[in-house]
């Protein structure tokens, strides 16, 4: 920005520059007066020209400064909105991280990135049981718990006991639709066999037999078959209609068993 603010709109000494009215005792007083007025008019004209030119300069400078100010203001707004977007993204990322995973799943120590797998499983649990521990064949270490708005039951967070070599995590929460079940959501795939697999009791869909009954997890089951079943169960459990139908079928089976 280079402009000169040392302009002087008011020449305070201007009146002193005007010719002084001196008393005249000669007969040519009239001529003198005319001369004086003419001279004053000339000086006034000159001063007006100077002030007008200054006015023009000021107007131009003001326009230039206003333009620069406007540009700077736009830049400032742009930077501010960019900063806001960055802040929101960062907050969302942090929220997502805190939501489920405390350290990113799928990023191994070697730095390679794999797509994480997410699966869901339902476990029957007594309403009085508030421990949120489910027997799924693996050992877990609890690392957090919180309550969310959508479901008043607490949500517990676990990581595999083999962590950090195994990065699988799970969250467990009582089902909002049917409180007689707890829902476990797993992220990642174990890179080791489950030590308690023989005693696990997981509700899984046996598609081969076409039934909707709880089946015992068997030690030594083929890995591919396990993965396939997990994937099918995962995709099916995403369908709310299916979940409702499954819960109803299981409840019906329990009622039948209690009658017989």
């Amino acid at each position, binding site marked *: *920005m280079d402009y000169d*603010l040392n*302009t002087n*709109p*008011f020449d305070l000494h201007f009146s002193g520059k005007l010719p002084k009215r001196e008393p005249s005792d000669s007969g040519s007083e009239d001529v003198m007066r*005319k001369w004086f*007025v*003419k001279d*004053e*008019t000339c000086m*006034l*004209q000159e*001063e*007006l020209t100077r*002030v*007008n030119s*200054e*006015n023009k300069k*000021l*107007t131009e*400078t*003001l326009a230039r*400064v*206003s333009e*620069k*100010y406007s540009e*700077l*203001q736009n*830049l*400032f707004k742009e*930077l501010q909105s960019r900063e806001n977007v960055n802040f929101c993204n960062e907050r969302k990322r942090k929220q997502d991280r805190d939501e489920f995973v405390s350290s990113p799943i799928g990023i191994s120590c070697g730095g390679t990135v794999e797509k994480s797998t997410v699966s869901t499983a339902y476990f029957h649990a007594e309403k009085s049981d508030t421990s949120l521990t489910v027997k799924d064949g693996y050992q877990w270490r609890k690392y957090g718990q919180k309550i969310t708005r959508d479901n008043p039951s607490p949500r517990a967070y676990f990581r595999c006991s083999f962590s950090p070599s195994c990065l699988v995590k799970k969250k467990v929460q009582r089902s909002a639709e049917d409180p007689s079940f707890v829902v476990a959501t797993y992220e990642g795939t174990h890179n080791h066999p489950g030590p308690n697999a023989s005693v696990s009791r997981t509700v899984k869909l046996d598609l081969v037999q076409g039934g909707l009954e709880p089946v015992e997890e068997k030690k030594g089951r083929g890995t591919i078959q396990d993965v396939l079943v997990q994937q099918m169960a995962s995709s099916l459990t995403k369908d709310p209609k299916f979940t409702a139908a499954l819960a109803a079928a299981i409840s019906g089976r329990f009622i039948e068993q209690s009658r017989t």
Partner: protein
Amino acid sequence: QDESASELREELNRVNSENKKLNEMLATVHENYCALRHQLE
């Protein structure tokens, strides 16, 4: 002649008053500009 001088004085006053306003505006815009630039730095 007297009339002409009087008109000139009037015009001079008007332009001077306008210049004063322009100077004030320029000072304000310049001040705001400096504040904003300082904030950006």
